[in-house]
């Protein structure tokens, strides 16, 4: 049984300019002990779907889904009190900005201890022992002396380790890491990713890794879900995805990796992710797609089968060739007009 099962999740935000759909019909499952990566540019709704799961979205958000099950519990209908018993214990999350994600007024020891007190009811002595154990587990040197330090006295990398220690304090079944390395130095990034992978192996928890870094995906994930403008456009096991991307967006992302570049100049995807006011008709990727035809502009695509990586595309790629595509003559030159 999957630990997490989301089907047809949509999140709408109430804004001054009307409703804005940040997540649009996303489905995903995570098996116990699996590492699933969600990839996409900024604004593709990666974080929002996971924040919806955690119940951390502001009141302006409306969440709709056919199914949102975690560990046999329906997160859509669960009362807030019940959800709080799960969140932070079996379902934990770490964030992008470790420096601002810890409370500046309390020591790191206290902040980790709080989780142990609230969820496990440990007494003071047990909390202290477990906190030291956790800090050692996440690789913080001389852990016992670090208990009384404040977040501002430590580096970003150390703070992210504290965040991880706090998240794994109650041995969660699923850990969501929302771009955990984006705010960190490159050398520290690798350490934090190694730490997450190591903890995942040792504890057997499932891990959802949100990132926009394909390199991170290749190194850590088992399965990849690619999101674009709030929609899931492709999902494949990691090796298959890198070998044969089925959606033109995935293919374009991969060809933009420096280690895969064939030309002197790195290829890029023209344009930006559509926002609230410039949502295109038909396929949302059509204004930026190299294979766009009349049909793409007129009609929204449907999700393809497993063989085509669940690609949300009229002409899913197969070994780089668009299947069923009418040929180069039918490609619209939308990039110039855009």
């Amino acid at each position, binding site marked *: 049984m999957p630990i997490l099962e989301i089907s047809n999740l949509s999140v709408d935000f109430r804004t001054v300019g009307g409703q804005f759909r940040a997540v649009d019909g996303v489905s995903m499952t995570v098996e116990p002990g699996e590492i699933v990566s969600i990839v996409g540019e900024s604004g593709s709704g990666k974080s929002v779907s996971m924040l919806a799961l*955690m*119940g*951390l979205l502001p009141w302006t958000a409306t969440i709709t889904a056919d199914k949102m099950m975690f560990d046999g519990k329906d997160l859509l209908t669960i009362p807030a009190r019940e*959800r*709080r*018993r*799960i*969140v*932070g*214990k079996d379902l*934990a*999350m770490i*964030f992008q*900005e470790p420096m*601002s*994600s*810890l*409370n*500046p*007024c*309390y020591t790191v020891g206290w902040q980790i201890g*709080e*989780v142990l007190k*609230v*969820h496990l009811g440990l007494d003071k002595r047990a909390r202290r022992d477990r906190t030291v154990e956790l800090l050692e587990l996440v690789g913080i040197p001389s852990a016992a002396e670090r208990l009384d330090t*404040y977040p*501002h*006295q430590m580096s970003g990398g150390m703070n992210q380790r504290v*965040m991880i220690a*706090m998240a794994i304090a109650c041995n969660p079944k699923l850990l969501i890491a929302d771009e955990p390395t984006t705010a960190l130095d490159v050398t520290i990034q690798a350490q934090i990713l190694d730490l997450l992978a190591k903890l995942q192996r040792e504890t057997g928890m499932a891990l959802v890794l949100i990132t926009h870094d394909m390199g991170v995906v290749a190194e850590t994930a088992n399965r990849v879900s690619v999101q674009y403008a709030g929609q899931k456009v492709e999902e494949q096991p990691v090796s298959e995805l890198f070998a044969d991307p089925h959606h033109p967006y995935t293919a374009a992302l991969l060809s933009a990796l420096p280690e895969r570049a064939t030309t002197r100049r790195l290829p890029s995807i023209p344009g930006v992710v559509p926002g609230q006011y410039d949502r295109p008709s038909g396929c949302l990727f059509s204004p930026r797609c190299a294979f766009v035809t009349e049909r793409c502009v007129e009609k929204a695509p449907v999700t393809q089968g497993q063989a085509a990586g669940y690609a949300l595309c009229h002409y899913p790629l197969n070994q780089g060739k668009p299947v069923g595509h009418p040929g180069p003559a039918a490609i619209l030159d939308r990039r110039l007009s855009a």
Partner: protein
Amino acid sequence: MFGFILRRLGLLIPTFIGVSLVAFFFIRLLPGDPVLLLAGERGISPERYAELMHRFGFDLPLWQQFITYFTDLVQGDFGTSISTKKPIFTEFFTLFPATLELSFCAVIFAVVLGVPAGVIAAVKRNSWFDHTAMATALVGYSMPIFWWALLLIIVFSGMLGWTPVSGRISLMFFFPKVTGFMLIDSLLSGKAGAFQSAVSHLILPTIVLGTIPLAVIARQTRSAMLEVLGEDYIRTAKAKGLSPFRVVAVHALRNALIPVITTIGLQIGVLMAGAILTETIFSWPGIGKWMVDSIFRRDYPAVQGGLVLIALIVMGVNLVVDMLYGLVNPKIRHQR
């Protein structure tokens, strides 16, 4: 921390000089002089006038008067009142407990109501409570303090008869002064009803003096709280599965209080200014009323000495507030 206190004490020196200058010259800008006012309506012969002016040293050039006053001041001599012939220092600290008692109650009143009101307004943003509380705060802040006092007296003392009009305690009670604080002294006296009488005399002045600080604190708490509630660490606290109450009371409030404490410190000066009006209206025998009386009598030494002493107290309170700030905010504490 010790170095910090020393540095702050060093900063007091220029402020002290500035205040003594202002106190000396501004009271002399007022028309009239103490001797003329002592003489009263019937007037005084020019010879007698010159003699008295000479006795108080007011016939000397201004700069000479200032040097005498300032050298006395740095030696701790605040001068002698012209009208009562008592040392200013003794007179000031005889009356100061009354002002301190009133100010303390006003601050407590403002904090106890203002902080929770601000927190609730921020948490229930845009609710009817938020709108009502903030509109009320705006009215409270904008209202002339003497008008508000008179209004309360008319309603609660005049029409309803619930509270006394003026003074610190009913004339029925007489007991020795021990601490100078009426609430404590009335309890110590052991006389039945004395404490109740002291409390009932305090209610209206406390509300009047505490209204502006209350409004400022409520608004400041609300905006600080709103800012803090949007911080990443609040999201973390929610992600830990904490109850909404714990998120607000433990994680948000302490951070939000940091700017609020500064505001409270700044309100102490406002309170001293407010005390002058409040004490005059309620005949509260504190330094505010004493200052007003001294100004009317052109009692130069009393006004000068009183102003300098008030300034020193305000500066001292602000120093304490800054130290408190460090206690709440670990970032500041470690910078020192």
